């Protein structure tokens, strides 16, 4: 069997191809697995699935297997409203800019190693010292995500994918430090609200009007799953306790386990920010309304309206709290009195996988003589939907780098 003009070890032709899925194959002891790179994606939420869709477009001859304990509709991504309005990550002007690169460079050049108090495990400086996500990166990922979803929204697939345009207002009780956010030219028709428009919100003094996209988890995730399967990917419902479980069946692991990375990647910087929401029937609402603080919002969807919300740091509780529900409802009714007529109110809770910055990074796990390349892709906090396609493309690029490194005669991975 010839590939790219070279005769490879597979010329004995003993590797099986699954019928209909040329990229998956049965492990064969004779053959080197070098030509088909076996990739495991851990996590089947928004990041896992979108990365699983991106990987085959960038990595030649690969097989993708998505392994997770939860699939849609039981993931965190299914709870989120999916509206594309970025939140400020550290590194954006809303946070104090940190001297990232300088400190990292300094520590490296002086051989400084940080240790967690009382532990012999070295702290990973890249996890703690300079985790900020620079604004230009956030803008790039948001733009890539927006443009990608925008073309879906304008196609016949929009309904199947659960992606569509929605207009509305972001309103502030006091003047924001940033009247024009970094993403203003990515969304459509961004402008300040007029006095007449602000009359609708007597407690607010300033507002922004624009058109953005909504991407509905419970519809978008199954659509992504279909795309993964169509390009030969497999879905395996299984809980992974340790990434080494994936060795040696897989050549590269992509870690999209969100909060699961505390355990799977030993990352103590990731923590939940609990969000409770209500899903209600109020089909007359056609606009989103978001209070600038991000705590109160109304996002109309295809089959319900999401009312939110809460931001409870470090709270792992997945059960809805009735008191909180009443408070959310009351805050939203204050912004939109017609909500008093809403019915069929359901409560949902999601734990945002929050981190000082998104982790998009290669890591070579080593144990004795074993090596396992890992690409980390997690920690989007409240900005998952806003950034997912941009970061998935980047994760796929990192996977490709790992795949290239596997293929070279003397593999030498650099972090």
């Amino acid at each position, binding site marked *: 069997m010839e590939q790219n003009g070279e005769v490879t070890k597979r010329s004995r032709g003993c590797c099986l191809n699954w019928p209909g899925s040329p990229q998956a194959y049965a492990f064969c002891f004779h053959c080197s697995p070098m030509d088909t790179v076996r990739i495991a994606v851990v996590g089947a939420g928004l990041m896992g699935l979108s990365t699983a869709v991106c990987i085959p477009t960038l990595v030649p001859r690969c097989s993708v297997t998505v392994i997770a304990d939860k699939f849609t509709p039981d993931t965190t991504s299914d709870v989120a409203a999916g509206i594309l309005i970025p939140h400020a990550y550290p590194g954006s002007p809303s946070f104090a800019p940190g001297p990232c690169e300088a400190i990292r460079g300094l520590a490296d050049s002086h051989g400084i190693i940080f240790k967690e108090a009382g532990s012999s495990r070295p702290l990973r400086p890249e996890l703690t010292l300079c985790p900020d996500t620079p604004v230009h990166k956030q803008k790039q990922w948001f733009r890539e995500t927006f443009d990608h979803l925008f073309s879906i*929204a*304008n*196609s*016949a697939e*929009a*309904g*199947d994918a*659960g992606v*569509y*345009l*929605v*207009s509305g207002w972001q309103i502030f009780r006091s003047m924001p430090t940033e009247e024009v956010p970094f993403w203003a030219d990515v969304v*459509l*028709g961004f*402008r300040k*609200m*007029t006095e*007449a*428009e602000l009359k*609708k919100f007597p407690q607010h003094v300033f507002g922004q*009007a624009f*058109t953005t996209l909504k991407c509905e988890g419970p519809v978008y995730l199954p659509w992504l799953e279909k795309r993964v399967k169509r390009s030969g990917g497999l879905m395996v419902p299984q809980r992974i306790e340790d990434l080494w479980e994936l060795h040696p069946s897989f050549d590269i692991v992509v870690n999209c386990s969100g909060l699961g990375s505390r355990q799977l990647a030993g990352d103590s910087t990731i923590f939940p920010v609990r969000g409770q929401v209500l899903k209600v029937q*109020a*089909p*007359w*609402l*056609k*606009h989103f309304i978001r209070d600038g603080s991000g705590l109160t919002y109304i996002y*109309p969807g*295809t*089959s319900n309206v999401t009312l939110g919300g809460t931001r409870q740091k470090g709270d792992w509780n997945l059960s809805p709290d009735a008191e909180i529900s009443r408070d959310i409802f009351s805050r939203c009714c204050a912004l939109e*009195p*017609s909500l*008093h*007529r809403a019915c069929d109110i359901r409560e949902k809770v999601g734990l945002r996988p929050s981190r000082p910055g998104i982790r998009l990074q290669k890591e070579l796990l080593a144990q004795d003589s074993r090596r396992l390349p890992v690409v980390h892709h997690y920690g989007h906090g409240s900005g998952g939907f806003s950034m997912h396609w941009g970061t998935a493309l980047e994760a796929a690029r990192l996977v490709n780098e790992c795949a290239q490194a596997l293929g070279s005669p003397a593999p030498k991975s650099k972090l």
Partner: protein
Amino acid sequence: MSVEPPRTAERGGTMRVVVIGAGVIGLSTALCIHDRYQPVLQSLDVRVYADRFTPLTNTDVAAGLWQPYLSNPSNPQETHWNQQTFDYLLSHLHSPNAADMGLALISGYNLFHEAVPDPSWKDIVLGFRKLTPRELDMFPDYSYGWFNTSLILEGKRYLQWLTERLTERGVKFSQRKVESLEEVARGGADVIINCTGVRAGELQPDPMLQPGRGQIIKVDAPWMKHFIVTHDPERGIYRSPYIIPGIREVTLGGIFQLGNWSEVNNIQDHKSIWEGCCRLEPTLKKAEIVSECTGFRPVRPQVRLERERLRFGPSNTELIHNYGHGGYGLTIHWGCALEAAKLFGEVLEERKLLRMPPSHL
């Protein structure tokens, strides 16, 4: 609805008003007159006569978007009535009742093949602006457009709401086909409000009134949050595709046929609407069709909103005409109701029937 027996003429402080027509014009005029004058009349009896009630009126077929024609109306008062209606509806938006009324804010797109001047109503709607190039990219057949926030007032829901309000106030409804104004006058009406819409010619010939037949398809497309109205000056108003989301369903249209009285849905019109709207918004190809219907816009060069005095036998009957609102009945209805109420007030003054409420004595 029961048929009321004709009443004998009786005087002594009672004002008997018959509103003919139970579309948005008839019901809103009845409500406006009742609320304005019931407190200052010794006795006010308002009845609504119609052969068709919701959901069988033309109002029920309308998509319900508040939007006047693009060109200035020949009667400048109409601009004022449009504004009054918008302001009135906007003031109800903040109440929990908005959804009950069939009222909601909606934003969307007006699309053109070339640059056009801004409409006279640009400062009435909210946030009016031109479309950006990226927005225009979504509509390859069009090169210019507007974005603004307006209101939806769903005909069916609004008529139900008006009916409830009128019933609460003791206004009686009577289903009957009125054959002549004389019949209503001789039945005891002091004032007749003629809100008979497109069929006003049956009661009094009006060569300026014509049906502007429209056909619409209602689909289930809950992901559509914006209206999209296209314009083609060569084809004329309402003859270019439009997509207007309502509270639950989305109305697709683009038919306007002057002089056509056919109440039957036409297959050619169906194709024209469906193809035009799917071309405009490809996501609609997956939408499920819920219903299709035909209505008749009461087209007239301007709204007929004026008094007329009838004489049948010994007595005078006052007639107030309020019909001919074309395709903008919902858009202009409240301003016209207020004007009709003002004309009614003139009648009361002339007959010296107005009295101060008891607390002022």
